[in-house]
């Protein structure tokens, strides 16, 4: 009997192994295409794209959260009024065109008249008004934070026109209307309910290129082609399956073996191998469904006596060799930060501002000047510094998410070389947010501040003194500069982009002198996909709208 059981188990495993082997895509090296050939190939219809996602989204309503996990998994189901192209410029989506009047205080959008929700109901301007007034302004943290104070009314003169009226000229609106910042949801589904508890959050109805198929929590989300999509030729794929794979190494192995076709991020140590694989294509981008144009930024707590002195902050900045952060931690993905605003917003990014460059001698000189003296190469101690007892060692802490622990190690090594003792404090995200923003209990930290497509979305919060408080990922440095506050206020009202560009340059010139932060790496992510697939748009949550796979 035992023998029989043994044989049966082995036979079952063997059968499945054979069965699976026949269905699997060809192993690495046996692919039918060379590098880059599929990117220019003619699209084909049909097929299933398997996508690796790192965490379970929990629900599929991107209008009630800024969670990257939800946006990554659900943006193909929805649309914004506008889309952003690879350069971050607005393009028509649910809106065909728009007028800006009253010097930027009134935006009028003309909507497509051929859009239906996945359940067949027509899309109208009432859906847009409902989405903003009842959902986005209540639950989407970024839209709420940016628009709620300045948006006056939303009017719908007819079914295909919607007007946003502001209490003052408001420049950044067009960059806040894509599917990440303002996905439009159906009024007939959500009206009269609590949007956070509506069953449609896990059985969603959108207007996007794919419609909802099924959601097995913790395992996968299946999307099916929307045959009635308003861009008539799209999508090409029959289905997209989002497979939850929390471990990056496993996700990459699955891509290399052909179990998945697309992953959002390639781990740095594997970049070289992936780029050299003939079966995999890659692309770098600064945009993610959760946020874009992110800069790894070291914050100084200006309320701490030691760091309140700009010469100490400047010395620390000079002691950091930022190229090593880029090379050793990011494996070359991105650029050494050249300005406080990401190069991903080219019109606002200021070239040639005077960020302190790596110069240990200058760092030592500044610390000596303040009174932090070093003897015999050991840690520096205070000598004659007002308010600090003589002999006090120059010791600061450095907080980081565990995923950014290597930033801490390099900071400790580099500051140690100029006599600054750094204590590392790795903290999980919820604890980090509470410690830094609610308790203000830190000396320095590192945060990936995502600038967004417009400085008003993700830059102002870092420097505006009104953003000091317990809200996470705002003004960590406790930075106060009335001139900077005024310039930001002026920039949001300035409709002319050249004028805004000039104002943001002035802001960047001031903050690099004050050094409330040190801007380390203008980071990028590397997407990777099977070379027998193509047509991706790696910079957007609509990445697979025009994708195709050759079976």
């Amino acid at each position: 009997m035992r023998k029989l059981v043994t044989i049966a188990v082995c036979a079952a495993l063997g059968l499945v192994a054979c069965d699976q082997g026949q269905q699997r895509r060809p192993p690495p090296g046996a692919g039918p295409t060379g590098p880059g050939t599929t990117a220019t190939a003619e699209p084909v219809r049909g097929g299933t794209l398997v996508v690796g996602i790192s965490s379970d989204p929990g629900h599929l309503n991107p209008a009630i959260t800024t969670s990257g996990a939800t946006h990554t998994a659900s943006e193909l189901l929805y649309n914004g009024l506008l889309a952003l192209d690879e350069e971050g410029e607005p393009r028509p989506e649910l809106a065909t065109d728009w007028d800006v009047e009253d010097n930027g205080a009134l935006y009028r959008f003309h909507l497509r008249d051929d859009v239906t929700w996945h359940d067949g109901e027509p899309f109208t301007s009432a859906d847009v008004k409902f989405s903003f007034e009842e959902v986005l302004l209540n639950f989407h943290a970024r839209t709420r934070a940016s628009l709620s104070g300045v948006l006056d009314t939303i009017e719908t003169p007819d079914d295909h026109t919607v007007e946003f009226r502001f209490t003052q000229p408001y420049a950044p609106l067009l960059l806040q209307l894509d599917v990440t910042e303002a996905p439009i949801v159906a009024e007939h589904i959500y009206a009269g309910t609590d949007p956070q508890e509506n069953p449609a959050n896990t059985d969603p109805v959108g207007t996007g290129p794919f419609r909802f198929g099924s959601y097995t929590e913790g395992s996968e989300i299946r999307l099916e082609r929307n045959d009635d999509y308003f861009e008539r030729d799209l999508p090409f794929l029959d289905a997209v399956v989002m497979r939850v794979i929390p471990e990056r190494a496993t996700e990459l192995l699955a891509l290399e073996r052909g179990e998945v076709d697309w992953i959002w991020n390639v781990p740095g140590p594997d970049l070289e191998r992936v780029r050299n694989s003939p079966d995999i294509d890659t692309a770098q981008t600064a945009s993610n469904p959760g946020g874009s144009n992110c800069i790894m930024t070291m914050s100084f707590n200006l309320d701490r006596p030691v760091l309140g002195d700009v010469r100490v902050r400047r010395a620390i900045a000079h002691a950091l060799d930022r190229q090593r952060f880029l090379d050793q931690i990011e494996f070359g993905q991105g650029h050494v930060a050249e300005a406080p605003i990401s190069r991903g917003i080219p019109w606002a990014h200021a070239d040639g501002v005077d960020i302190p460059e790596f110069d240990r001698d200058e760092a030592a000189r500044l610390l000596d000047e303040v009174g932090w003296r070093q003897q015999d190469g050991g840690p520096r101690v205070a000598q004659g510094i007002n308010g600090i007892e003589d002999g006090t060692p120059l010791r600061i802490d450095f907080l980081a998410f565990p995923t950014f622990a290597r930033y801490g190690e390099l900071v400790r090594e580099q500051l140690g070389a100029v006599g600054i003792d750094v204590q590392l404090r790795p903290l999980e995200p919820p604890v980090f947010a509470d410690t830094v923003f609610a308790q203000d209990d830190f000396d320095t930290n590192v945060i990936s501040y995502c600038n967004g497509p417009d400085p008003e979305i993700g830059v102002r919060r870092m420097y505006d003194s009104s953003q000091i408080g317990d809200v996470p990922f705002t003004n960590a440095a406790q930075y106060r500069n009335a001139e900077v506050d005024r310039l930001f206020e002026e920039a949001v009202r300035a409709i002319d982009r050249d004028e805004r560009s000039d104002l943001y340059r002035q802001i960047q010139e001031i903050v690099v002198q004050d050094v409330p932060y040190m801007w380390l790496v203008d980071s990028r992510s590397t997407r990777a996909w099977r070379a027998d697939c193509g047509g991706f748009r790696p910079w957007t949550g609509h990445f697979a709208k025009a994708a195709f796979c050759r079976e």
Partner: protein
Amino acid sequence: MDPRYLLRRLGQVPVTVAAIVVMTFVLIHLAPGDPILALAGQYGDTAYYAEMRAKFGLDRPLPVQLVTYLGNVARGDLGTSFTTGRPAASIVAERLPATILLSATALIVSSMVGVAMGTVAGRRPGRPADVTLRVGAICGYATPSFWLAQLALISLAFGADLFPIQGMTDARRSLTGIGSLLDVVHHLALPALVLAASEVALTTRLARTGLIEAGRGEYIRAARARGLSERRVTRHALRTALLPLITVLGGRVGMFFAGAVLVEIVFAWPGLGRLLLGSAQTRDYPVLLGIFLVVSLGVVVVNLVTDLLYGWLDPRIRYQ
């Protein structure tokens, strides 16, 4: 068995579980980190956070939250997940079968393999086979399961292409019936083997020691004197030798769950272990507490069953 003993043991179950729930509730809520910050993501405003705290009752004093929670649990309501807005009980119930399948398979495999290895080792202590198996057992026990999982993944799944790399099913196919079952078995094999590997060591050592001690018993000498074959003598001895294995079963269930957390992450197995990690990261208290409740209930019940089973298997044992 004394019925009063049985009733007393059964009565201990709810008390133990309630104590665990109270302790975990307090510890989880005292741990640093705010679920609302994790839930809302970046850029929220103070009023938004205040609204969310009020909505989930997190603005009330901890004792009030605890009493409310215990009252709800007594009525079978584990609360609503902060992140999904769905009942925590449903979320836990959906993920439980995958973990039970993985852990039970690993438990059965490790028990069978461990007893077989322990028997080989214990029959001739000190011989090369015994030494080899003992060293192997120590190595297996000392190998972290997440590392073993990575090795197995790279060599057996990626290199040899014998097993799938991730998940519980093939993402490209919608199978039904026997095809679906075989697909799950194929995906289950590698994570279950990895999870079983470290437990094999414990089982091997327990079975070996038990067999050696049983071999010194008079009934074994009597069996040999009666001229029974060595194979039948071993079977006699095993019956006694396996008693300690049953004793540690309750503890092993807890260990399996702990191991499953790591193995499920590496193999993207959609079970409770992964849910635990995700819920801990987002401070999703209702789901976290639901998981602890289910796991502690499982351990307590298994301990109860093993206690009762022990008495049934060995009639010399009497409970008061």
